[in-house]
Each structure stands twice: as structure tokens, then as C-alpha cells.
């Protein structure tokens, strides 16, 4: 039985394992004990605080395997990507250079530093034990955050964003970093990424070149990496596109990984999430049904599980006693449910930037 819940201090060793096991290593999840401890404290504060509009709250969740009594995944929501400091991205832009005299018109691609994503709510720092990759647990961990946001919209921005790790070659080198960042920092991508995670990314961004970069001057390998996700995150990106996220003009300043964005009302999970009163039935007597994410309505004791979306003729959600117990709900309580299945990625319309 798998459940997503807020992180607790006792989860620290598990978070450390997950941080060092992430592929590739994540800026937002540095394998650094003190930082992870702070992260948990900060998250507990966010869950317990009364919040009327998004600020610098970080909500960190863990995925717990109850049978194994083990924390096997983690994910975070930053209420605002750049709350205390700016959140930097490179924005892909096109400049037209035209000459009437020569009757030529040239499009020149540039990357400009941007703070535009700073206001968005950022879903980040997801790491999952490899055993659970490709299972419904992965979707649960990734998208239970949307269930949380759906319940507490005032705590988050209208716009949600996810920055996917960028392309790295088989040696773990970032071609984009090697063509751009390395010139300015004389350090490798992995080292810089670690420093950024432990300190902060924006203070590094402040040392980045402030003027736009002309793409024709970058190496072909770097250009090819722009907006390209890390191979290990292809399916994750696909899932989020199916959710309703769309690719944006923004890419990560270190590795040029894609930033996807969405107006949250357009998300599949938002559009299909519905409240249902709970009716408890023995597991063996539950009718067959499609899987759904089911979340309780308890801020600090938030729980989200995958259960069958079995409704009674009167619209009650039929839950097993085990699920009801994990969610901490008794008969008659309302829970939020949304189908786990998403339309196939190729059916999702990508209308470009918001």
C-alpha cells in the first residue's frame, strides 16, 4: 500500500538516499544532510502556517510504502519559483535581422536571461526509488501534488511550472553547460549543480552572462540540447504534457532542460477532480473500476493514495477499510478523487507558450 504524505523529520535518512539516488542529480534536491533537514523543517512550517497567497513556502512530500515501512520517493512544491530571489531561466527568442537593401531577412535565435517564471508555482525535486519507476506509484508521487494544489488553490499561483533535468551525454556531461556556463565558471556541470543546490541557483545566475546569447555561436551539441530533457525523464515529461502542461520558451540556465507551464485550470487532474462522500466496503466486495488518485482534506495530514474509482449509484466513493484508514477518513467524509489515467500524450494539444 503506497501513500503520499508530508515529509517528517524522521524521513531525513530516506531523503538523503533519494537525493543521492536521483538520476541525474537534481539541483533542487542536493545530497546534503543539513540542507535536507532544513527542507523538512521548512516544509513543516509551510503545512502548519495559514497562507492566503503564495510566498516562499516549500511543501515537501514523501511516498511511503506501508508494507515495507519505507520511504521510497519524494517531491516538492515551491509555492513561488522565485519568492525571495529571482528564478532564472533562459528564454528562447527570435530576432529578425532584415535588410531591404539586400532583400534578405534572417531569423537569429537568442537565449535571454528571464525572470518570467519566478511567479509560477514550481513542481520540483522529485526522486523515486528505481524499483517503483514506471508504476502507478510514480504517477501518484508526481501528480498527488496537483491534488494538493487543487485543494488549497490560495496557496499557489495560477500558473504551474516544471523544469525537467536537461540532456546529459553518456559521460554525464552537459553539452549546453560545456558550451555556455563553463566559460564563465570554469567548473564542471555536476560540481556547479551541486553548489547551486546547496547554496542557491540565483546567486550563481547573477554571475551568468547578462546579455543574450546568439545561438549560432554555440556548439551544435549545445544547440541540440536546448529544450531537450534528460533521457531518464522522457516519460515524466510525456506524462506532464498529457496532464496539460505545455512546452514553453524557457529552458534551464545550466543544462537547457525544458520548462513546461500550464494555467492550472487546464490540467486534466483539475478538470476531472471531484469531491465524493466516502462509503467503506470490504476490499473483496469493491467493484472493478479504473484507478484514481484519492486525497483527504487534511492540510497538515494530507494523504493521497491510488484506489479504484468505484462510485455507488448515489455518487459515494467506495473505499476499502485499509484505504480509509490510511487517508484518515470515516464513512461520510468527503475525499477528492481524480482519474489516474490521462489521454495519450499525442492527443494532448500543445498550443505553445501561455
Amino acid at each position: 500500500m503506497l501513500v503520499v504524505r508530508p515529509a517528517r523529520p524522521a524521513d531525513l535518512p530516506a531523503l538523503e538516499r533519494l537525493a543521492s539516488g536521483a538520476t541525474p542529480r537534481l539541483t533542487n534536491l542536493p545530497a546534503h544532510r543539513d540542507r535536507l533537514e532544513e527542507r523538512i523543517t521548512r516544509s513543516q512550517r509551510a503545512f502548519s502556517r495559514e497562507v492566503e497567497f503564495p510566498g516562499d513556502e516549500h511543501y515537501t512530500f514523501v511516498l511511503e510504502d506501508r508494507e515495507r515501512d519505507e520511504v521510497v520517493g519524494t517531491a516538492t512544491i515551491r509555492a513561488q519559483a522565485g519568492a525571495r530571489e529571482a528564478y532564472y531561466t533562459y528564454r528562447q527568442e527570435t530576432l529578425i535581422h532584415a535588410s531591404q537593401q539586400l532583400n534578405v531577412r534572417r531569423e537569429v535565435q537568442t537565449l535571454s536571461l528571464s525572470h518570467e517564471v519566478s511567479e509560477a508555482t514550481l513542481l520540483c525535486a522529485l526522486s523515486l526509488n528505481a524499483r517503483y519507476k514506471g508504476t502507478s506509484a510514480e504517477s501518484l508521487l508526481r501528480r498527488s501534488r496537483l491534488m494538493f494544489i487543487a485543494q488549497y488553490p490560495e496557496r499557489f499561483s495560477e500558473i504551474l511550472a516544471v523544469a525537467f533535468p536537461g540532456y546529459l551525454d553518456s559521460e554525464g556531461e552537459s553539452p549546453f553547460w560545456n558550451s555556455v556556463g563553463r566559460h564563465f565558471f570554469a567548473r564542471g556541470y555536476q560540481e556547479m549543480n551541486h553548489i547551486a543546490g546547496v547554496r542557491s541557483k540565483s546567486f550563481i545566475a547573477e554571475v551568468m552572462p547578462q546579455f543574450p546569447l546568439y545561438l549560432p555561436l554555440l556548439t551544435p551539441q549545445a544547440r541540440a540540447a536546448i529544450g531537450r530533457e534528460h533521457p531518464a525523464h522522457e516519460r515524466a515529461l510525456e506524462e506532464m504534457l498529457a496532464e496539460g502542461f505545455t512546452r514553453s520558451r524557457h529552458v534551464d540556465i545550466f543544462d537547457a532542460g525544458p520548462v513546461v507551464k500550464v494555467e492550472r485550470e487546464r490540467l486534466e487532474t483539475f478538470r476531472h477532480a471531484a469531491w465524493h462522500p466516502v462509503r467503506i466496503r470490504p476490499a473483496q466486495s469493491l467493484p472493478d473500476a479504473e484507478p484514481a488518485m484519492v486525497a483527504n482534506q487534511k492540510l497538515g495530514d494530507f494523504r493521497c493514495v491510488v484506489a479504484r474509482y468505484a462510485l455507488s449509484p448515489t455518487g459515494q466513493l467506495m473505499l476499502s477499510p485499509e484505504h480509509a484508514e490510511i487517508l484518515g477518513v470515516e464513512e461520510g467524509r468527503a475525499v477528492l478523487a481524480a482519474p489516474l489515467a490521462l489521454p495519450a500524450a499525442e492527443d494532448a494539444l500543445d498550443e505553445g507558450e501561455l
Partner: protein
Amino acid sequence: MRIRPIARGDLDGLQALAQQTGVGFTSLPDNRDFLAGKIESAARAFEERTPLDDRLYFFVLEDEENGELAGCCAIVGQVGRDVPFYNYRLGTLAHSSVQLDLHRTIDTLFLSSDHTGNAEVCSLYLRPEYRKSRNGALLSKARWLFMAQFRDRFPDKVLAEMRGVFDENGVSPFWECLGSHFFPMDFNEADRLTGLGQKSFIGELMPKFPIYTTFLTEEARACIGQVHEQTRPALEMLKKEGLRWEGYVDIFDGGPTVEAYIDDVRAVRNSRLCKVEVTTGAEQAERPSWLVATTDMLGFRAIWLGRGPDENDVITLTEEEARRLEVAAGDSLRILET
């Protein structure tokens, strides 16, 4: 050999020169109509019919024995007035962070029109068979005497654009790495258009943001501020006059732009006026070390002389020298020992 203003009858001679100059010599394209226009505007410049700002003072080096043109040189009164004058300023940006224990400086190329309004010495070309007997120095330095003599026609500063580096195939590594991305043409075509004065495309197609040189290839970076092998002597001569590279380079080939305040140019500062005396015969040193020039604009002439003035600043010319300079006893000459 003598320097004189170009005349309307010099078109054939000038075109013969233009055919010899080759790649990277922007201001003298082999285009008869263009050269005819150039001669006309130069002739008018000396005749004082053009506004001060767009005067082109174009001089030729004349082989007095056969009347052929051995070379040429020019002064533009003010650059950038009718068409924009662009170059790159090589700048430095510090990228430093105490927390990261990081301090690096990154070179940048900023598009600039900082030289707008400056005078330019340019178009110096000397046919290979005449590269002897200080002819090159005569072409280069006569301009300083002209500027000293007609100082009020020129602004505070003067610049010279030096030809940049090209490889053995006539390819500019700087252009290949930078310009070729922005200009849908090869270097020669871009150069040709610039030479014809059709420069507006530069501003339209150029990258407007600074270029971090760290993104350029090593070969291209190595060209920044460097001159073509054949241009080195000309650069040395200008440097001796006090012109300095202040970090500006040509946008096409990366060649250096050297500059100075006109009043600080050694030849301008050190030249002075003398009175002419004419005799039938006068001795002179084998190596001519005195540059002498007339003080009349239309009748501007400059030659080398192997003898200087006496203690009363009277300079003695033979009848033949007086004829070559078209001066008579009692006239003034501007002289420079060099």
C-alpha cells in the same frame, strides 16, 4: 615622386590601382562608376564646394618620369556622418562571486559608433614595384602635413582602420566565425558593398547585443586586433606617429582601428613652416629625411628632400624641385624632418 590631389583625369590610373589592391581593401573597389564618383567628390573636396563633414581628400603618388600613378592615400574629414560608421569595441566584463571564489573576466565585443565625427586616414596603397625609396612613408606622412596645414578643417581625433588577418586562401577566420552567421553573403561581397558605401545593411544585419568572445573559435579570437602580414609596416608607421590601438576592431575581419588626437600626432606637432629660396644647384643627402609640402589646398604637393632649412628657417630648393612643387622663391613650405 610626388604627392598631389587626385584630378579628374586620373580615372584610368586609379582603376589600375584598384585592380591590384585585392581582398580586404574596402575603400578602393574595382568599380569604374564608383571610382569616378570618388574622384569627383575628392576633386570637389579640394575645391571647397562640399560641406566640411563629408569631405574626402584623396591623394595620389605620381611617378613624374612616366606620369603613372604609383599609389594613393586619403583622408576622410569626418566618418559616420552620412552613413553609419561601425566597429566593435573590445570590452571586459568581470564575472565574480566571493561565495563561489570566482573571479573571471570575459572579453566582449560591443557594436559601437564611437568614432562618428572623427577624421580617418585611409586608402593607402602603393604598387609593389614602388615599394622602395621611402615612397610608402611619403604616402602615409604627407597626410599629416596636409592636416597640420589645414588644421581647422579637421576634428579633434583621427583614426585608421587596419586590414585584419586572412589565411593563405584569403579567408578571414574572424568573419567565418562571426559575420558569416549574420550576413548571408561571403566576406568579399560584404566587403565590396561596404567599399561602395552601401553600409546600411551592416546595421540591419549585425548582432545588436554584445558578443562574448569566449563563444568564438580560437582562430577567430586570435584575429581580434591583429593585422594582415602585409599591413604590419603601415601599422608600425602610424604607431610611430602616436596612433594607438584602444580596443576597437573592424566588424568584418577583426583588424584593429588605431587612433589619436590630431594635435598629438608627432608629424602634426613637429611640422613647421619655412620660406623658399631657389638656386641653380644645391647639395642633398642621399637618404632624404625632409618631407616638404606646399601650403595651398588645390595645389597641394609633397616630396622628399635631402636637405633641411637653415637657421633662419629658409629652405633652399633647386629649380627642378621648385618646379615639381610648383612654388617660387618667397613661398611658404610646410616641412617635417623624419
